[in-house]
């Protein structure tokens, strides 16, 4: 499958149940998505279904972080498995492309990408595949 890299950086948004944001931050941190911000949020899923299960507006936490686009797919898979995001009312995770950003983390990602690019060039020069 073709790798989708349309932007140099991506913002990753993870919305999970209240109290689980710290776990999401840990996963993000382990996957090169530092500088995570946690905010409180309210989930408003399908009201009829929610009332059937006995709850209306649910308390949520939203985690926002900056991530290398090459790592985003893998990270979303990990988040999906860990928080069981396939199931209803468990939350969701998305990535949004951004054109530019200023932060020390940005420099880290840039250096990482630059290092990978140089590595590929060196391998090509050495005749390695």
């Amino acid at each position, binding site marked *: 499958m073709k790798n989708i890299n349309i932007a*140099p950086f991506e913002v990753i948004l993870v919305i999970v149940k209240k109290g689980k944001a710290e776990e999401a931050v840990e996963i993000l941190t382990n996957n090169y998505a530092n500088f995570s911000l946690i905010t409180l949020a*309210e989930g*408003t899923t*399908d009201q009829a279904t929610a009332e059937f299960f006995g709850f209306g507006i649910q308390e949520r936490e939203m985690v926002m972080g900056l991530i290398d686009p090459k790592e985003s797919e893998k990270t979303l898979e990990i988040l999906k498995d860990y928080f069981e995001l396939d199931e209803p009312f468990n939350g969701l995770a998305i*990535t949004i492309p951004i054109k530019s950003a200023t932060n020390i983390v940005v420099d880290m990602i840039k250096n990482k990408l630059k290092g990978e690019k140089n590595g590929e060039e060196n391998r090509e020069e050495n005749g390695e595949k």
Partner: protein
Amino acid sequence: MEKKTEKKMEKNNFDFELIISIIGRGHADYIIDATREAGATGGTIIHGRGTVDKISDSSFMGISIQPEKDIVLTLVKSTLKKNVMKAISENLNLTGKEGHGITFSLPVTHAVGVRELKKDNFIKRQLKDD
């Protein structure tokens, strides 16, 4: 790199869009109802504080009045985006002066946990090269 990014983003071929609406505190329910009628499954509300309103500098009986805002995040399919944003826009006009706000959308490259597409557990879009 930037030109390439701009060109690809201009295509606007994303599977999902994140609609962000910023409105006065307490009006989030109107947005949720409108987006639901237009086809969205739900939304997430976070709280914020505006800085544009003139009221931000005012105080009443020595108590400062803060222009509190609700921020509604709605993840929708790209095909629904226009209808949902139109519904939000119409709804904002209906709610009166206090309910005025802004709404905009951002492209989403990857998404997991979207209920409508449970069968496709991992939604990954592929850009079509010309």
